[in-house]
């Protein structure tokens, strides 16, 4: 298709639950620390948005090691929500994040609805935090799956947090480890979610055949990387077509994104924005090369705005 559109003339900006992203590419929680870690490799302020590692009320040491292992086209992780805790996050990590000038989304985890609500409320008070993403589906913490696999509990959790988050966008991150992810999406939306992140890692396990022992100290972990991308695309398509489009709730698509082609797939399936996770470990500059590729792709197709791509799957 020929067009006179130049890559520079393409508009990559996205409105997402009240946040304006200059481009659709965010970091996935837990893969980019608290911001400064990748500063030697990428201008962090060039991201569409920055998503922090999970924050819990108290500091957590996390699981014993080995915590990660590579598998075919992917990796398993069982970090166990290791993080500095709410107060150190506020005092030590926010100052850098406040300088970025892009939307910052804090990923929040907890043992129970009260912890989720307390941490979310505290972060909602911080001006540079534009969104709170509820990590209802960390598969590596005891009990962490309950909220993400039971629609009634998920709705109750989101309903509890909802009134405590007044300013920031309330985002719910969905687990793929369910029979019907659309049912979970509906529950999150009923509870008051303004956007849905999907998907979290798939539950998985790998075994050392020499020692007969699991390769992760935690025995099981979460599978991420290109191996899970087709699963994620299918789930985004399902939630977009069955829940999100009609509800007007945007989807942040993630799962195995390595390049701009993967991102185009997510947008076509219905994602309004995307997040890069595992591939940041491989190449921290991935978000920038994706944006360059997206501009060229859209210019070549004669599509002036990225938003024109969202949900345009032809079936």
């Amino acid at each position: 298709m020929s067009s006179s559109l130049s890559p520079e003339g393409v508009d990559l900006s996205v409105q997402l639950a009240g946040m304006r992203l200059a481009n659709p590419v965010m970091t996935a929680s837990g893969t980019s620390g608290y911001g400064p870690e990748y500063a030697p490799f990428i201008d962090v302020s060039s991201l569409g948005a920055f998503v922090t590692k999970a924050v819990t009320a108290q500091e957590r040491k996390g699981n014993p090691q080995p915590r990660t292992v590579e598998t075919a086209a992917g990796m398993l992780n069982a970090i166990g929500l290791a993080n500095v805790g709410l107060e150190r996050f506020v005092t030590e990590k926010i100052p850098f994040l406040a300088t970025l000038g892009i939307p910052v989304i804090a990923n929040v985890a907890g043992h129970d609805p009260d912890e989720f609500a307390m941490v979310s409320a505290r972060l909602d008070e911080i001006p540079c935090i534009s969104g709170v993403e509820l990590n209802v589906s960390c598969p590596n913490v005891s009990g962490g799956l309950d909220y993400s696999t039971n629609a009634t509990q998920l709705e109750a959790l989101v309903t509890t947090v909802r009134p405590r988050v007044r300013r920031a966008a309330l985002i719910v991150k969905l687990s793929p480890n369910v029979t019907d992810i659309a049912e979970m999406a509906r529950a999150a939306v009923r509870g008051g979610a303004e956007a849905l992140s999907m998907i979290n890692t798939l539950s998985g396990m790998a075994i050392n055949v020499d020692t007969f022992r699991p390769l992760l100290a935690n025995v099981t972990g979460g599978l991420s990387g290109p191996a899970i991308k087709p699963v994620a695309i299918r789930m985004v398509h399902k939630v977009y077509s069955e829940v999100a489009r009609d509800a007007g709730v945007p989807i942040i698509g993630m799962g195995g994104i390595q390049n701009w082609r993967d991102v185009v797939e997510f947008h076509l399936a219905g994602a309004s924005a995307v997040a890069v996770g595992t591939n940041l470990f491989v190449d921290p500059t991935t978000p920038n090369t994706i944006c360059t590729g997206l501009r060229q792709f859209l210019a070549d197709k004669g599509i002036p705005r990225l938003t024109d791509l969202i949900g345009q799957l032809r079936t």
Partner: protein
Amino acid sequence: MTVTVGDSPSPPRMLVGCVIANQALCREHFRLTLRTEAIENALPGQFVHLGPPSADAGDDVSRKGTSFAPIPLLRRAFSIAGMRLVEGDRCDIDVIYRVVGTATTWMASLRPDDAASMLVPLGNAFPVSKGKKYAWLVGGGVGLPPLLWLSEALNRSSRSVTAIIGARNRDLLALTFDESVEIPVDGYSASRVSAEFAANDTPVILSSDDGSVGFRGHAAAALETYYSRAGVAAGDLVVYTCGPELLMRAVARFCLDRSIECHVCMERAMACGTGTCQSCVVAVHEAGSPDGWRYELCCTQGPVFEAGRIVWPDSGGGVQH
């Protein structure tokens, strides 16, 4: 890029390295030399996070390279075994690796002019204590590489440096032997049998678990034997060690029991190498913490730790390793 002990390292960069050589050193170990842009300052103990070059921005082509070896997804961390300025504005980086899995099988398939991607330099460096007249480097198996580069740096700082290097057997010692030099077996005397260490004016004591070369026993036993007759005061000595964790633990114990300064270079599986993925935790003592210990990251707070800080696996106290 001249290594001056005590300088602080340059910030890490992502660079493409061009394979200059990829040579077998012994039965299972290879030395890969990659040429890249000059790095202003890197120090012994630091590492490179190495992987295939990135796929070309989404164009659906296989990754560059001529091999048909399985391609790993994640990078792997390797201590820098040597670094030299070449052609004025380029540098050569050596890593020594043992083929054990997908990533190292890919590395073994690399040929001259193939490309690899590097995050470099990463991690901290071996601290070099002023006032220590003697520096001993105790390495086992694939723990040898950082000590090779350290010997080069220490040699320039006019200390008396001795290397104590062990392996399971002679075939697994990744060193070039000078066949004209007799290899002592008593553990008391060092020789210049290793061309690599001899180039850094560092005599070496070799040990092997099966006695096929040098002292019979592991490197920590060789250290103990050598120390018993060396006549070196504990306060004048610093020991650097890298190798299997059991060896490093034995070396650390030996040193801590005698108040000898000791630094260990730890190994952990890591996904990012830059402090984000939280994979590579090392348990360290922390007096202020409720349970007396906490985790540090091997990638950014290590890989070099003062031996007394490490909570070794059999220390009890409920530490989760």
